[in-house]
């Protein structure tokens, strides 16, 4: 019918013995009195509009049609556009949905092997059609008696539909498209007029260019796959950044029209519903599904739909964890990615929490100095920094520094370790001693630094004494500092490990007498272990007298 009408130079419409000229018929049906027809149903609208569009054109067509070398075509539209206009019509023989359009096509499907051949099966024909329209770099799956193709390909998002409305009477659509610029961002609207199609283009649809295809395709994202809205379009859009090729799973379904209520429909459901015999218990099905969710998220990000993208990423992370476990590298990688999104959208709590867990798991599974672990730590560090928590950031930075430096650690020892000691806590220090213990030479300055740090200095000092006692060089000032500020455990540790080297000078005893919190205990320790060296001088008594908290106890102890 369509080809017949599209080819006609003059049309007469006949019902019984009543006749009307085709042009008059079409003009009337596109005038206002008949608007009610198009409000009846979308289907009638699309049918009548495409028919009147073609019938009306008949009288304007050139009567002389020169025959070019062998091939005769009406050259009305490219094949892809014709298919989109007419695939919803009925045909006695399904093959005619393709073959009947060949003579109207302005590209040359026959040269590309789409020769009318009623002996080949429908699924083969449908497969050939898809390959002709989209180029060779795809894989297509088709089924007998089913007007549907599943297409796997790679493609980039070129833009997003920002407005869509039907024009006048003939079913064409005016579509606003926000194209992506060279940096990948959506620019402001450009208007295009697109030919009539069985499925209406809607706001939010994506324009993408499949690898190997000549023209962009308009698609709609469902939960984890895409429905083809218009297989080829006459749009001329800028090429997107080359690194944005995404894996796409497209379903071109001629039978399903409007997906109103199935926004969240999943691929499995769709395929099962349309092709019941197809879906067995596929081993890779779960993995495929997670990967699809993931790819869909990337595409959504290209379209700057960050909220929806995050939703799918979360679901994919959940999927990996359920499928492969918490310690699987795929799970960890996906968590890293999700946390990066949280960071990008300033959801600090979520980002930090997730990175911290990933770092912890990676340390256990892959090792602390594995590049993956370090990379996750670097993300964590930059998250702290972006939030403004420079202290935490610096701490992680230190840890990375410790882990990354290997042979050359010796050269920066003093300065590096001092930095760590002055500001940081046990986590970092422990890491240092643990990972780089044999490379660290503890200097007087370091001990001073530890002793001078009232926050974590004591713990650091203990750690140093405990693990690296044989290397620690203790200066007089350091012993004074320990006696004055630290608990008796540290002094005990010092005496145990370095007993022979520790000089109990008058300054040390004076310092112990002045130790506000632990004066008595420290003094007792000194007396017990180095009793002969402990001299009660005037200075010591003065110091104890000045110690309002424990001075009295110290004096009592010394008098005994």
């Amino acid at each position, binding site marked *: *019918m*369509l*080809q*017949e*009408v599209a*080819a*006609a*130079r*003059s*049309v*007469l*419409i*006949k*019902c*019984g013995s*009543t006749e*009307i000229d*085709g*042009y*008059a*018929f079409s*003009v*009337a*049906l596109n*005038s*206002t*009195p*008949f608007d009610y*027809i198009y409000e*009846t149903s979308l289907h*009638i609208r699309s*049918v*009548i509009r495409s028919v009147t569009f073609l*019938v009306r054109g*008949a009288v304007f*067509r050139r*009567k*002389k*049609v020169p*025959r070019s070398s062998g091939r005769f075509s009406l050259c009305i539209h490219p094949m892809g556009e014709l298919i989109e206009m*007419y695939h919803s*019509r*009925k*045909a*006695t*023989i399904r093959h*005619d*949905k393709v*073959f*009947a*359009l*060949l*003579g*109207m096509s302005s590209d040359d499907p*026959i040269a590309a092997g789409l*020769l*009318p*051949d*009623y*002996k080949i099966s429908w699924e083969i024909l449908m497969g050939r059609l898809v390959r002709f329209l989209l180029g060779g770099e795809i894989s297509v799956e088709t089924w007998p008696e089913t007007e549907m193709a599943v297409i796997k390909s790679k493609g980039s998002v070129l833009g997003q539909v920002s407005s869509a409305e039907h024009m006048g009477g003939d079913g064409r659509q005016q579509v606003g498209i926000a194209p992506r610029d060279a940096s990948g961002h959506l620019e402001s609207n450009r208007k295009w007029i697109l030919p009539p199609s069985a499925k209406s283009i809607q706001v939010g649809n994506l324009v993408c260019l499949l690898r190997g295809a000549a023209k962009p395709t308009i698609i709609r994202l469902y939960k984890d796959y895409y429905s083809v809205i218009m297989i080829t379009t006459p749009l001329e859009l800028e090429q997107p950044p080359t690194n944005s090729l995404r894996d796409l799973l497209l379903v071109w379904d001629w039978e399903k029209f409007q997906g109103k209520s199935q926004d969240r429909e999943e691929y499995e459901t769709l395929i099962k519903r349309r092709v019941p015999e197809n879906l067995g218990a596929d081993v890779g099905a779960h993995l495929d599904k997670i990967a699809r969710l993931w790819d869909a998220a990337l595409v959504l990000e290209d379209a700057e739909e960050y909220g929806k993208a995050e939703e799918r990423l979360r679901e994919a992370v959940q999927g990996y964890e359920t499928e492969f476990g918490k310690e699987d590298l795929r799970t960890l990688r996906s968590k890293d990615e999700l946390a990066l999104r949280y960071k990008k959208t300033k959801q600090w709590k979520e980002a930090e929490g997730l990175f911290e867990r990933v770092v912890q798991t990676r340390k256990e599974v892959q090792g602390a100095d594995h590049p993956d672990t370090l990379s996750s730590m670097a993300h964590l560090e930059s998250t702290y920094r972006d939030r403004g928590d420079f202290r935490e950031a610096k701490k992680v930075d230190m840890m990375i520094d410790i882990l990354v430096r290997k042979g050359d650690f010796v050269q920066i020892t003093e300065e590096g370790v001092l930095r760590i000691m002055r500001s940081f806590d046990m986590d970092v220090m422990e890491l240092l001693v643990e990972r780089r213990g044999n490379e660290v030479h503890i200097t007087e300055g370091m001990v001073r630094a530890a002793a001078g740090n009232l926050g974590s200095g004591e713990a650091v000092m203990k750690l140093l004494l405990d693990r690296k006692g044989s290397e620690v060089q203790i200066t007089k000032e350091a012993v004074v500092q320990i006696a004055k500020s630290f608990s008796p455990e540290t002094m005990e540790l010092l005496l145990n490990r370095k007993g022979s080297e520790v000089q109990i000078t008058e300054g040390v005893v004076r310092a112990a007498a002045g130790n506000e919190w632990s004066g008595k205990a420290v003094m007792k320790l000194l007396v017990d272990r180095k009793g002969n060296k402990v001299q009660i001088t005037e200075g010591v008594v003065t110091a104890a007298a000045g110690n309002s908290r424990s001075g009295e106890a110290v004096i009592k102890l010394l008098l005994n």
Partner: protein
Amino acid sequence: MSRWDHLFLRQHSRMTLTIPVKNPYCYAHLSPGDIRLLRLMPDKDENARVQCQLFDYPLHESDDGTQLYEALSYAWGGSEKDHRVSVDQYSLRVTANLHAALLHLRGRFLERIIWIDAICINQDDKEEQGQQVQCMAEIYSRASRVIIWLGEPAAGSDEALEAIRVAADKTPTEPLANEPIKQSILALLQRPWFERVWVREQTLNGNEICY
């Protein structure tokens, strides 16, 4: 063969004794670049049996312009080829809708040259089908006129077409107010012709139509 076929053949063989029955039409080979055209013979009796002739036409050798034949566009209509027409003294089975179209297209005094896919293409020859399908666009382009056959009049179709004709002429801007006319127009636009892409006969097994 079903039991009904036996019954039919028995009846049929009895009939052959009394009246001469026409043999089914057999298509001759079609040269590449040619098409067949149908000559629909006139009859003053509108109920008389449809008589026509088929002849080969060298479409590829014709000039660039339109040719003096019409082409029919119609919906197949039903699955039964239960009507018969005479083609060159032989019998050919067609669907009810096509039969109705032929009756309405037949002139009282003038013959009419028409191209009709179901008759002009040998539906039993897949190879010919494939070739002719490639010629379709050209066949319809070179027809002096394409006739769209919507079917027999029904459900106010005459009034509907009249309202459409008037609207085309007067280009009114008011919405249609006459509810029955509106419904008739809607019914007309939902006739099968508007639904199909391209209707062709389903291939029948040659044995079934030979009697």
